[in-house]
C-alpha cells in the first residue's frame, strides 16, 4: 500500500520510495526505506497529511504520499 492510504493514527514502515517523484529534501528529512511512519492528522479532504516520519514531524501533500510505499504495522 502507499502512504496516502494510511489512516489517522495508523503506523507503518516505509518499504520503498520512488526517488524520481520525491523531492530529495523529503528523503533527507528521514523518509527512507526501513523508517517508521505514523499519520498524526489530516486536513479537510485528507490533504495535506501530517506525519511523524522517523521522529520528524512534517506535512506533505497527498500527491507526494502516493509515491511512498509502506507496510502497515497496526490497524
Amino acid at each position, binding site marked *: 500500500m502507499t502512504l496516502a492510504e494510511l489512516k489517522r493514527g495508523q503506523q507503518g514502515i516505509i518499504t520503498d520510495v520512488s526517488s524520481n517523484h520525491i523531492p530529495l529534501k523529503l528523503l533527507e*528529512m528521514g523518509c527512507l526505506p526501513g523508517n517508521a511512519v505514523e499519520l498524526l492528522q489530516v486536513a479537510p479532504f485528507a490533504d495535506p497529511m501530517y506525519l511523524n516520519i522517523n521522529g520528524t514531524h512534517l506535512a506533505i501533500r497527498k500527491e507526494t504520499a502516493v509515491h511512498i510505499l509502506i507496510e502497515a504495522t497496526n490497524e
Partner: protein
Amino acid sequence: MSKQINVALIGNPNTGKTSVFNALTGLNQKVGNYPGITVDKKEGICKLPRGLKAHIIDLPGTYSLNASSLDENVVIELLLNKNDKDYPDVAVVVSDVENLKRNLLLYTQIKDLQIPTILVINMSDRMEYKGISLDILYLEEQLKTKIALISTRKNKGIEQLKELITKYKELSTEACLDTSIIDASYFNSLKKAFPNQLVYKLWLVITQDVNFGKTDRATFDKVEDFKTKSNADLKRLQQKETIKRYQFINETLKKGQTIDLKSAKDLRIKLDRILTHKVWGYVIFFFILLIMFQAVYDWASYPTDLIDAGFSNLANWVQHTLPEGAFTNLLAEGIIAGIGGIMVFIPPIAFLFLFISLLEESGYMSRVVFLMDNIMKRFGLSGKSVVPLISGNACAIPAIMAARNIESWKERLITILVTPFTTCSARLPVYVIIISLVIPEGTFLGLSFQALTLMSLYIIGFLTAVFSAYILNKILKIKSKSYFVIEMPSYKIPLFKNVLLTVLEKTKTFVFEAGKIILAISIVLWFLASYGPGEPFNNAEAIVQQKHPNLSEDQQNDLIAEQKLEHSYIGIVGKAIEPAIRPLGYDWKIGIGLVTSFAAREVFVGTLATIYSIGSANDLEDEDEAMSTIKNRMSEEVYSDGSKVFTLASGISLLLFYAFAMQCMSTLAIVKRETNSWKWPVYQLVIMSGFAYIVALIAFQVLK
C-alpha cells in the same frame, strides 16, 4: 590589529540557529543582501577569548547541502568557494537535541568538505523533558569533532562555544564517512579526471545541477575519460548517499544517545489535536486573525496619529521659523512631509511583524500553513501564501516581504503579484470620504448601505487577489519545482530577544529601502505642484487680485492657491489627462488626485483638500470638521454645465478604481526588491491600473 576569523553558522531550520547567532553577536549584527539576489545576509562580530575576534555569518537554514531554494543555494556557493572572502575558517553546525538524527545529516556532509567543524547541540534544557541523555565523549569521538551542548533559552554553554571557536585549529578535518562507496568506479573516474580536487566537492557540483540548474556542468563533459551520468542515475545515487549517511548516524546514536520514552512528554501531539483540528483549527485561526487586525488597525493607530501630528507640526514650525523661500518650502512640504509619510507606516508594520514573528517563533505558523494548503493550492498558491494575503489587508509592503518562505518560485511570485489587491489601510480614508459622499443613507437588514459598501470593497479586494492568482497560475510559464514539505516543529515559548530583533530588522529594512524611493517621489511631486511655466502660474497673485479685487484676503488666498495649482506642472498634467478620465466620470481635479495617489493612496484626500482650496480648513482643530468641509466642497463641485461632479456613478467608479489600481510607489519598490527585476512591478502597475480603468469605465457608463 587583532586577527579576525570567519565563522559560518549552519543548521536545519527550527534548530535555534538564529538564537545562537543573536547570543554570539548581540546587537553587533547587520542584515544585507547577497549580491544579485534578495536573500538576507546576516553577519555580525563576536569577541572571543584571548583578543580574537570572529566575523560570524548566519547562513540560511537548510536540511542538507543539496539546495532546493535560492536561500539554501547560498550555503553551498559559500562552502564550495575557497576564494570567497567569507569562506569560513570554522563551520559551526547548530542542531536541536530533539532532532539530532536528522540534524546530523547536514553535519556529516559539511565534515566531508574537510572544513573544521564544531557541532552545537542546542535546546539542552529540553533533554530531561524529553527523556534524552547523551554520551558526549563517545559522540565527539565518532563524529570526529568537539561538541558544545548549549541552551540559548537558558543562556548556557555560550562561553564554552566561544572557547571552542577560539581553538578551531585543533579540530580534525577528517571526514566522517567515505562517500565514494556508493559507486566506487564512478568516484574513481572522478578522482582520476580531477586529481587536485576533493571528490565530495566535485560530487556536490555535479549534483547541484540536478537539483537546481545553476552550476555549469559543461566543464565536466569536456574532460576526456570522464562520462557523467543521467539525472535519474545521479538522483538514485543521492538517495543511496542519504541512506548511507543515515546508517552511519543511526549506528553512532545507538550508543551515544539514549531516549527514555517513558519519561518523555509530548505536548505537541496534544496541542495539535486541537490546533490542526478540521473545525477547531479554523475557528482558533480565525480568532487569532481578529486579534491581529485589531492590533494593526486599532492599536497601531495611536502611535501613527502621534507620528503624523508630530511631522505636520514640525513642517509647520519649519515653515514659520525659517526664512521664507524655496528651500524652506522644499524642506517643509517636500522632505519633512515625505519622511513623515514613511514614518507613519512604522507602527502598523512593527505590529504586524510582532504578530508574525510570535506566530513563527511559537511554531503555530506551520499549523496554519497545514490547514490552508488545500484551499490555496486550488488557486495556484501555497499554504504558505496565507500570511501575505492576510497581512496585505494592513499593508502590502510587509505582506510581500512575508512571502519569502514560499519555496516554489512560481507560487511565491504569484503571491507577490496578487497581494496588492487586498484592501490595505491606505485605501480606507479614500473609501470613507467617497462612500459618505455618494452612497445614500439607509439600511438593509439593519446594516447601513455605507457599511455594506465598505465591506463589499474588502471582499472584492480579496476575491480579486485569489481569482487573479488562478489566472496567473494558468498563464505564467515558469518552471519551478513545486512541492510542499513543511516541518511541524514542537511548540515553544517565543524568545523575547529574537522577536524584538526581527521586528527591528524588518522595520529598518522598510524604512531604508522603501523609504528612499518614497522620499524621492515626494520631492518630485512637491516640485511639480509648486512650480509652473509662464504667466498664469508665476503671476497668480496679480491675476487673482485683478479679477476679484473685492474679496477678503482669505478668499483671495484660496483662489490664488487654486490658480497656482491649475497652472502648476501637476495641474497641467491633470488637465492633460482629463480627456482620458472624463469617460470614467472624473474632472481634472480628481485627475490630479489620481496622479498624486501614485506616491501613496492616502495622498488622495490630502490632495483633494488642497485642490478644493480649503487651505484654511487645516487650521481647524477638529479633524472631523476638516473632513466635512472637504466633503461639503466636494459635493458642491459642479461642471461648467452645472451638473454635479460627484454622483453615485462617478463615486462608484472612483471606489472601484481605487480598489484595483496599483497606486503605491512603496509597494512597487518592494516588489522590485523582492523579485530583483523591474519587469514584475511594471507589469503590476500596467495590468492592475489598466484593469481598474476598464472596470471604472464600465461602472460609470452603466450607472450614469
